[in-house]
């Protein structure tokens, strides 16, 4: 099965090819192509995964791609426990989202294009995961970035979508550039970008790896610098502070896109990369690269959790929640919790995709994103409600849902590694429970606060409305209040809800050998054993403490938003300026807008001023001089040059008059003359011999 793994990204790629070139013809049938391709990939991916589960050895295939002297750049793929479980997750979640999109995007004029982009995205993601080298990974990575750009701006007539897509692209580009520099640094140091070779070299502490670079007053080991540069990519792609600003805006894309790309998979690419390149981070002196990772993750988790508290847009809350959870994963990886971070990556993919899809179902029904205009939906949309609730409980970390197990692992690792990080993450976990409860309370409980007949979807741009499309919900008939979505959308929700419940069970202690959990056994980092680091074992007090934190968060929210013993505006008054601070996303976007956007514009304006006055002035001066010279020149030209030219003309014409009869226009005359000429030449040369 592992030998077939190279086929996994090819099917979505083929689907992309078909849809891109024949999509218009396929029309309504477009999703079948995409789903079929995804299904085949999923079968292959799960086969590969199960093979790994049953104990197959890791498999690496590589072939020379470019050969330059001694250096060979290889292309190939890696199948091991990490990549196989990740592709299994991607194909499963991706496939479900494809199915869901059939319903959600139905009636869209660019139906086929949507599935084409989704397919291309999956192809890139799977390539990135299965890659055997940083270079191939980078190719997949950039394809992902491109698809993200395309899909965020899928409603391309809408200005805000255009801005969001640019923002996403430019912001992640900052990280990508750093990563590219990092990969170049790797190539410079080791002469290869192949994972295995690089990691082995780092492990052995090759001479160059221990060299140091002077950077101002600090002396940074090269390997650390490289690791941190490469970490730039994940910071951008996985929405870590300070490059997280694009992710909330990316919610401009259609909801399945938010679910697939900005919750379950693409943002996971960064975390995956850190997991994949873990040796590079781990074998730095004192694991200092990992310390950076941990702190970036922790700050992100806490910051995003705080911001999420004050947002009203359902998708934005979920987006900040995603950022926060990604922070958790990074923090988990950073505190030597290799398994914990990646485990959370997998469980999070399921329940976050679920939450987004359920949110999409809600938006689909009430035609607004504002949670304050929803309410009481649990009655009218039972399936959506129950599945959303499952996702919520998983995210909040309530026993026995998936999030409980994975988040607890991270907290456990943090507890044993760095109490400060543990404290901050616990606070973030509390915030998670709090803002999610707030969301659930606003959206699903209380009474319905929206209009009786929901307006046409505000998310839809004008040209869609002109095309007679009334939102994603095709054949929209008059109905009272919101109602449940069609089965093609709810069935994927139910499947994901199932996984949100059970995906964490692989982390239950005792499911693996020696009393540990299965996931610890399956996903483990060999470097730990050598370094004598053992994963801390499950501890009941900590687990209970984290459960208590989650329940406390839910309880507080229940007090404020559920039974309303304390009214939310009172809370707002207590916290004073904190609320507007959080509501405006800690002013980070504002600062960026001032510094980078306006700064950039101001720089451009300055350069333009210089261009207009400085460069153009010079050019005009040169121009003036040129005009003066050319006037003089013209006089010379008119009388002297033209005179000569005319003279030659007259001479030529006279000569032509004389020679004209020779040109008959008959080819055979010319040939005769040529032949006669040949005869003469031969005669002359013979005579001279």
């Amino acid at each position, binding site marked *: 099965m592992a030998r077939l793994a190279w086929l996994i990204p090819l099917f979505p790629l083929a689907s992309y090819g078909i849809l891109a070139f024949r999509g218009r013809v396929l029309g309504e049938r477009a999703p079948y192509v995409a789903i079929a391709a995804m299904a085949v990939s999923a079968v292959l991916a799960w086969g590969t995964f199960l093979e790994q589960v049953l104990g197959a050895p890791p498999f690496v295939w590589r072939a020379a791609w470019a050969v330059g002297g001694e250096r060979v750049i290889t292309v190939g793929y890696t199948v091991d426990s990490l990549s196989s479980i990740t592709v299994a997750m991607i194909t499963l979640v991706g496939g479900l989202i494809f199915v869901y999109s059939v319903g959600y995007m139905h009636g869209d004029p660019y139906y086929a294009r949507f599935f084409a982009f989704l397919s291309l995205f999956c192809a890139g993601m799977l390539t990135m995961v299965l890659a055997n080298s940083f270079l191939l990974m980078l190719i997949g990575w950039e394809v992902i970035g491109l698809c993200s750009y395309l899909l965020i701006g899928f409603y391309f007539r809408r200005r805000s979508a255009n801005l969001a897509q640019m923002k996403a692209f430019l912001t992640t580009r900052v990280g990508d550039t750093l990563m590219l520099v990092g990969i170049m640094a790797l190539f410079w140091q080791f002469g290869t970008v192949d994972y295995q070779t690089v990691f082995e070299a780092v492990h052995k502490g090759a001479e160059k790896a221990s060299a140091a670079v002077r950077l101002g007053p600090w002396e940074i080991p090269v390997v650390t610098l490289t690791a941190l540069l490469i970490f730039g990519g994940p910071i951008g792609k996985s929405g870590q502070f300070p490059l997280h600003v694009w992710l909330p805006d990316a919610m401009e894309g259609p909801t399945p896109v938010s679910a697939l790309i900005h919750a379950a998979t693409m943002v996971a690419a960064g975390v995956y990369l850190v997991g994949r390149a873990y040796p590079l981070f781990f074998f730095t002196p004192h694991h200092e690269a990992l310390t950076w990772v941990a702190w970036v993750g922790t700050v992100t988790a806490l910051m995003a959790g705080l911001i999420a508290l004050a947002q009203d847009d359902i998708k934005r809350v979920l987006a900040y929640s995603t950022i926060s959870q990604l922070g958790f994963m990074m923090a988990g990886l950073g505190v030597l919790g290799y398994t914990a971070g990646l485990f959370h990556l997998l469980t999070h993919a399921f329940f976050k995709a679920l939450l987004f899809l359920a949110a999409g179902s809600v938006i689909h029904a009430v035609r607004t994103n504002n949670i304050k205009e929803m309410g009481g939906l649990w009655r009218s949309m039972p399936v959506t409600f129950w599945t959303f609730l499952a996702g919520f409980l998983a995210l909040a970390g309530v026993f026995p849902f998936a999030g409980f197990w994975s988040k607890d692992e991270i907290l456990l690792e943090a507890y044993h590694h760095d109490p400060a990080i543990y404290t901050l993450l616990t606070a973030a976990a509390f915030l998670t429970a709090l803002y999610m409860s707030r969301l659930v309370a606003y959206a699903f409980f209380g009474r319905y606060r929206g209009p009786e007949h929901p307006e046409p979807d505000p998310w839809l741009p004008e040209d869609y409305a002109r095309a007679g499309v009334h939102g994603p919900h095709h054949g929209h008939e008059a109905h009272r209040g919101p109602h449940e979505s069609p089965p093609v959308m709810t069935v994927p929700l139910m499947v994901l809800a199932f996984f949100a419940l059970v995906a964490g069970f692989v982390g239950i202690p005792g499911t693996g050998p020696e009393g540990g959990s299965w996931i610890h056994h399956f996903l483990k980092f060999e470097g730990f054993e050598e370094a004598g680091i053992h994963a801390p074992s499950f501890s009941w007090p900590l687990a209970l403490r984290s459960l208590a934190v989650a329940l406390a968060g839910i309880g507080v929210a229940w007090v404020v938003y559920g039974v309303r013993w304390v009214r939310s505006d009172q809370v707002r008054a207590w916290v004073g300026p904190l609320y507007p601070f959080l509501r405006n996303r800690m002013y980070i976007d504002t600062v960026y807008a001032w510094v980078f956007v306006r700064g950039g514009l101001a720089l451009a304006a300055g350069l333009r001023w210089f261009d207009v006055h400085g460069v153009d002035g010079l050019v005009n001066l040169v121009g003036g001089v040129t005009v003066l010279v050319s006037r003089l020149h013209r006089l010379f030209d008119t009388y002297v040059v033209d005179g000569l030219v005319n003279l030659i003309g007259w001479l030529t014409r006279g000569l032509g008059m004389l020679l004209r009869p020779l040109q008959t226009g008959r080819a055979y005359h010319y040939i*005769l003359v040529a*032949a006669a000429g*040949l005869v003469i030449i*031969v*005669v002359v040369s013979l005579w001279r011999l």
Partner: protein
Amino acid sequence: MNAEALAFCALAAMVLVGGALVVYSRNLVHAAVSLVPTLLGVAGLYVLLHAEFVAAIQILIYVGAITVLILFVILLTEGATGLRVRQRNEQVPLALGVCGALVALLWVVLLRVPWGPAAGPLPPYNPGAVGRSFLMPYVLAFEVTSLVILASLVGAIVIARREE
């Protein structure tokens, strides 16, 4: 006079008589049909020169394709090629003189050179030898020829098709 000389004389006669007919015949169809013995005669000479492959190609392309094409065009443009149209232009005597002089000079030149006997045996299996020459030392000529074929194919189609 041995058999080879006999064959050479027969073929040479065929070539020359055919060629003369091609040039002199007032009837263009006759001229075109006279190309057949000329070209077949040349093919026969190729066989005498151990160039069977060239001979086969000569028959296949010259006789089988080019002559047919020429005949075809003559028949299609019957209105302009019929017997009533004057077929010669005014420079016959001049041309006769020039051509005669040229041939005579060529003879003078080539009979002055002391041509030796045959330089050596040909490669025994010459389709293979020709193929190898085409793919190794003369690959550029081969590629350029293929380009010319492509260009003339396109050109012929574009020129000859009826304008819409």
